């Protein structure tokens, strides 16, 4: 393994790096303990960074040729740390060593020159360009943009089993394919150490497995992968080493074989592990929300009108959580907006607690008792530059304690904000700070607190724990469960299948604007649900070999 480290002097041309990868692969890596310099070594990294918990005294050693997972709550400082390693942030203290050599990165370009590449959580691809064009974009110096570049791209793709088709437009690719393009993009630039920021967040289980196969391939070729996640099961299945970060510092380094997801989670949170399970049923016979034959068409950018919601019908009873599974972009967002009154459906009815609200204005619906935890909290849930107490008023300006008659009651609103901050454990120095200065989890706790404070009859929770740390996640789940016991009806939309299965009383699968399948959360597995989400199954999903009754029946 020493030759792997020694060869990785930054001056190497990318083509040479390719050769060295081949050399490395001839001697199976990882198992033999590398006495040589580690691929990445971070010592005493401290960073005071706005909005999130500061990194302090972080120490991580990443062995070459391994998949090293970095786990921790959101806001624990993982992303900051990776930005430091990738040259996007400068550490206030501490050292970074790459292959035993101390470095200082002023920009990502420096990091790339040292063979470090990053795949961001949100893809950075130009939709209207082909895969090949996206890959060479910005790296034209390496192999030009012509035949040589194509050859190089195919070479890299083959070597790591990425199966990338160079001439397809990125807009025609699915999420998993796009991710492979991103990985290839990084490899093409000669990366020997890849940072993947929550790569599985956007994938369905089958795609996750494929990604992990790719990662193992990379590892076998002697590359190093730094993998950020908070999905512990995945981490345990793919990582060779795991470093746990809590509240800005490294709290433990563990080996997957010697730990369980539960132990790992406890290390992350520093306390007992939460679980989304709700098994005792609180479902009643009283319908709270009935949606019948809901239809909504929208004009897409090409000017073609198509149905984004088609024949949607379901009933949520008091005390029931209805979960909707589906790959994003299949109409979930539109369904939520139709129920919230932000889009006017062109067919069908929505009945809340016996009253027809199909075309009622949003404010009326809110006053009538719909609570809303939006998918995109920055766009729909918060006024980022306004203080917390104004955010507490947002959406409930006509209700107590925020106003009396037509006048605002600033004193009461402020006092109630203090209450929410305390009761919902929003970590903030005060209620005069802007919402933008809180971390994601704390913003979400504020939103949930605000919505719950008005005792809704129906709660629409779209990805309620996305980008939220484990501690806050448990709290939000608890609140939903508690309200459900008191008769709250919940429409839950989530990409986190464990959350969906764990919290829901009833499950529906949405595909291309229709509810194509239903399932019993007590028996269904994430894998079965995942395959139904791709449109491979419809009807009632049974847990067993005959799980998918009909294949592709719902595809159109």
């Amino acid at each position, binding site marked *: 393994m020493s030759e792997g480290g020694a060869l990785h002097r930054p001056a190497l041309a990318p083509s040479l790096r390719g050769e060295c990868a081949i050399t490395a692969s001839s001697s199976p890596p990882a198992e033999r303990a590398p006495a040589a310099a580690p691929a990445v070594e971070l010592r005493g990294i401290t960073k005071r960074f706005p909005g999130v918990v500061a990194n*302090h005294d972080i120490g991580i050693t990443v062995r070459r040729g391994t998949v090293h997972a970095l786990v921790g709550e959101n806001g624990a400082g993982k992303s900051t740390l990776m930005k430091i390693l990738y040259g996007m942030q400068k550490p206030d203290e501490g050292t970074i060593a790459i292959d035993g050599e101390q470095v200082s990165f002023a920009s990502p370009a420096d990091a790339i020159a040292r063979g470090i590449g990053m795949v961001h959580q949100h893809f950075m691809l130009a939709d209207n360009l082909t895969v090949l064009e996206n890959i060479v974009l910005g790296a034209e110096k390496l192999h030009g943009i012509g035949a040589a570049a194509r050859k190089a791209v195919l070479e890299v793709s083959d070597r790591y089993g990425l199966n990338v088709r160079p001439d397809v437009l990125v807009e025609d690719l699915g999420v998993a394919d796009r991710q492979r393009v991103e990985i290839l993009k990084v490899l093409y630039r000669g990366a020997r150490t890849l940072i993947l920021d929550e790569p599985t967040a956007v994938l369905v289980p089958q795609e996750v497995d494929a990604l992990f196969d790719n990662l193992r391939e990379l590892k076998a070729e002697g590359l190093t992968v730094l993998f950020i996640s908070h999905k512990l099961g995945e981490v345990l299945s793919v990582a060779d080493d795991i470093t746990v970060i809590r509240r800005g510092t490294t709290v433990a380094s563990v080996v997957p074989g010697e730990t369980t997801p539960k132990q790992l989670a406890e290390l992350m949170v520093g306390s007992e592990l939460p679980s989304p399970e709700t098994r005792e049923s609180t479902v009643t016979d009283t319908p709270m929300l009935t949606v019948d034959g809901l239809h909504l068409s929208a004009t897409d950018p090409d000017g073609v009108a198509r149905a984004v919601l088609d024949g949607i019908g379901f009933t949520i009873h008091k005390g029931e959580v209805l979960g909707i599974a589906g790959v994003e972009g299949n109409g979930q967002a539109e369904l939520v907006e139709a129920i919230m009154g932000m889009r006017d459906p062109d067919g069908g009815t929505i009945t809340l607690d016996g009253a027809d609200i199909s075309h009622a204005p949003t404010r009326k619906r809110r006053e009538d008792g719909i609570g809303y935890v939006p998918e995109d909290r920055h766009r729909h849930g918060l006024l980022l530059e306004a203080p917390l107490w104004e955010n507490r008023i947002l959406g409930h300006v006509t209700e107590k304690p925020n106003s009396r008659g037509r006048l605002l009651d600033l004193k009461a609103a402020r006092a109630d904000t203090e209450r929410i901050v305390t009761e919902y454990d929003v970590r903030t120095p005060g209620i005069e*700070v802007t919402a933008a200065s809180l971390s994601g989890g704390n913003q979400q706790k504020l939103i949930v607190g605000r919505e719950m404070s008005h005792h809704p009859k129906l709660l629409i929770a779209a990805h309620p724990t996305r980008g939220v740390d484990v501690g806050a996640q448990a709290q939000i789940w608890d609140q939903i469960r508690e309200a459900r016991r008191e008769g709250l009806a919940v429409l839950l939309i989530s990409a986190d299948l464990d959350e969906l299965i764990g919290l829901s009383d009833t499950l529906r699968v949405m595909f291309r604007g229709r509810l194509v399948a239903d399932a019993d959360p007590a028996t269904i597995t994430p894998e079965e649900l995942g395959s139904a989400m791709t449109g491979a199954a419809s009807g009632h999903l049974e847990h067993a070999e005959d799980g998918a009754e009909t294949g592709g029946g719902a595809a159109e």
Partner: protein
Amino acid sequence: MKKIDRTKLTLGIAAPVLAIVAALLITSVIILATGKDPLHAYAVMVDFGSKSDSQVWIINKAVPYYLSALAVAIGFRMNLFNIGVDGQYRIAAFFAAVVGGALTLPGFLQIPLIIIVAMLVGSVWAGIAGVLKTTRGVSEVITTIMLNSIAAAVIGYFLQEGRLAVKDGNLFHTPDLPASSHFFTIPTQPDPLDGFLVVAAVVGVAYWFVLGRTRFGFDLRTVGRSESAAQAGGVSVKRMVITSMLLSGAAAGLIGMPTLLGVSYNYGTDFPVGIGFTGIAIALLGRNHPLGMAAGALLWGFLERTGTQLEFEDYEQEIVGVMQGVIVLCVVIAYEVVRRYGLRIQQRKVGEELAAQARKTDKAEVSA
């Protein structure tokens, strides 16, 4: 908590101070470049501006400026750029003058009537832009600019002999208002202050109260900060656009009133133009704050008053225009810089405080 408040206060003062210092420096350099002494210019301005007749002049000049800034600021607070305040106040003043000139009612009836007509006409004119924006998606910037030209053309059409105007020398103007319609003045030495100062103050307080203390004002500010969040929060964005354009137009309708009811008593070809654009600069200068805009309006009046004196001292007459431009630029930049810096400081502070908390609890856990 207290620390953040203190920072906020410091930053609040830092922005205007920074802007004024920068503006003075830049203006000095410009004056130096023309080969004159900047310090002497400032001395002349301060000296002349502090004379009591200058003070009265400045305050009277500031009244319409302030009203104009309020009209613009209503739009700004909800992210609408009503660049058409100019056309709105002119057409409003014109029709108010026509109505006022045609009637002879007691003052306590006629003056409110004239003011109401002006506000209504201003609202309608601004409302056109609001309706076009909500129904057809036309940017209010475009429509209000075009409505400025249309207003000028409409006034030009009616301001002719035989239509709605009378000829007076080589000027055309609407028939004079009866003496009962003259607005009161506040007797001061050497000249009286315009009574409309009181109206401007009342409108300023109303602006502050409605925006800061009412549900409606909260909705309006919410739309200004984030249209998507406002919509999700139950605000009808379209209705809000129209309402705020109507309000902005109504405020614009007041701009011409000090002149109509207190100086000219008619709308003629020499009626002041361009106050709507001055209002944009002052709203920017005052950061849409009722007191800030008052200070801005006074500063504008001061510069215009003392600028005339600079000419006598052999400075270029354009220097005042340059100063005004430099000040607006400096203020806008300084506030943005300070705002971003403040946000960063705050985020850092929140991060640090939470990290400190976390360290404490972590240590407890580790030792446990």
